């Protein structure tokens, strides 16, 4: 149990997926203009990652390994992710229109979010068992959501401040990311 808590905390703050592994930069720069959309995107990413991790992990160990087809992992995983995102979109559209309205525009973007593919591949590389896989695939997108939310609140204020012309928009946002990365390095040694 202690091991699982360590795994969770270290992947949320210490080796944060955005600030130490630089994954999910596109949504970070694209969707982080409003804090409400940051939360929506974060929740959608958590749901898709946990769901597709369960699928890909099970598929890898029950189909690919017995058949000796481990080299098909990349193609299988990306198709599972794309199909899962599509399925979630259709399901929500039919059974929960309000949630679909809230998450709708973010869902198609998630297929090309590199965090999703990274987590499904890393579950296999790290050799996690089922429970570790669940904790890991919940922790990584939680870290993503945390950074996305903090980042969006900073950006809301940034929009109203004067910035040199060349730094307007994304360059200044990356300076902010650099400062956040500096702050997050102080979490090293927490666990």
């Amino acid at each position, binding site marked *: 149990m202690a091991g699982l808590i360590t795994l969770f905390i270290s992947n949320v703050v210490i080796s944060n997926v955005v600030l*130490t592994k630089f994954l999910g930069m596109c949504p970070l720069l694209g969707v982080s203009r409003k804090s409400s959309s940051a939360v929506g995107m974060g929740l959608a990413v958590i749901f898709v990652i946990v769901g597709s991790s369960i699928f890909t992990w099970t598929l890898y160990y029950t189909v690919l390994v017995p058949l000796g087809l481990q080299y*098909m992992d*990349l193609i299988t995983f990306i198709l599972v992710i794309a199909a899962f995102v599509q399925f979630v979109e259709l399901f929500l559209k039919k059974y929960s229109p309000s949630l679909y309205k809230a998450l709708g525009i973010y869902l198609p973007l998630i297929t090309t979010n*590199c965090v999703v593919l990274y987590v499904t591949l890393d579950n296999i590389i790290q050799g996690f068992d089922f429970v570790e896989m669940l904790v890991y695939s919940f922790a990584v997108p939680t870290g993503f959501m945390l950074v996305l939310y903090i980042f969006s609140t900073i950006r809301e204020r940034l929009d109203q401040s004067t910035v040199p*012309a060349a*730094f307007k928009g*994304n*360059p200044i946002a990356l300076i902010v990311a650099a*400062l956040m990365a500096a702050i997050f*390095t102080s979490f090293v040694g927490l666990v």
Partner: protein
Amino acid sequence: MKAFGHFLLSLLKENPVFGLYLGICSTLAITTSLDNAIGMGVSVIIILTISNIMISSIRKITPNEIRIPVYIVVIATLTKAIELLIRAYAPAIDVALGVFIPLIVVNCIILGRAEAFASKNTVWKSTLDGLTMGLAYTLSLAAMSIIRQVLADGILSLSNPFTNSIVFKINLIPAEYRIAIFKEPIGAFLTFAFLAAGVAAVQNAHAKKDGVK
């Protein structure tokens, strides 16, 4: 000479990395040394060119509704092939780049060019597009990695990944003046921000000049 100048200008004005912010995850992550940048850049040139050729040659028989899954399967197959080739012939690159080689699948540049260019143009044009876009990506990676490597390690070096022999190695900054932070994530974000601001400044200056005309 004029053609070269035009090429350099279009590299600055329509740069896929610093201008359009495509494929920046891997740009930030792997540019700690010139070796990594060249390894990643060449892999992307190969995958991007072949995927452009394949997608452009099947563009007339691809049903519009399922085009994105088709592109993803093509790109994923090529990426896996390159990953296996790198693991077999250049293990040093495989160790250094790690999970970022399979993540080329979700590099926005490749899917972006497939959707925006190869699906609408002839095979020959798409080949050229793949080569130039890949080259622009490689040069952007190289620019970033040179800055980071020189500031953090004080040396600029390039080694042959197939034999692990050193091609060249130049000592530039004495050990006591090196800024180790440029190897860290903070340095990656800072270098990227300043390069992107530089590209934006060039774009702004040109927009102004064109406006006066």
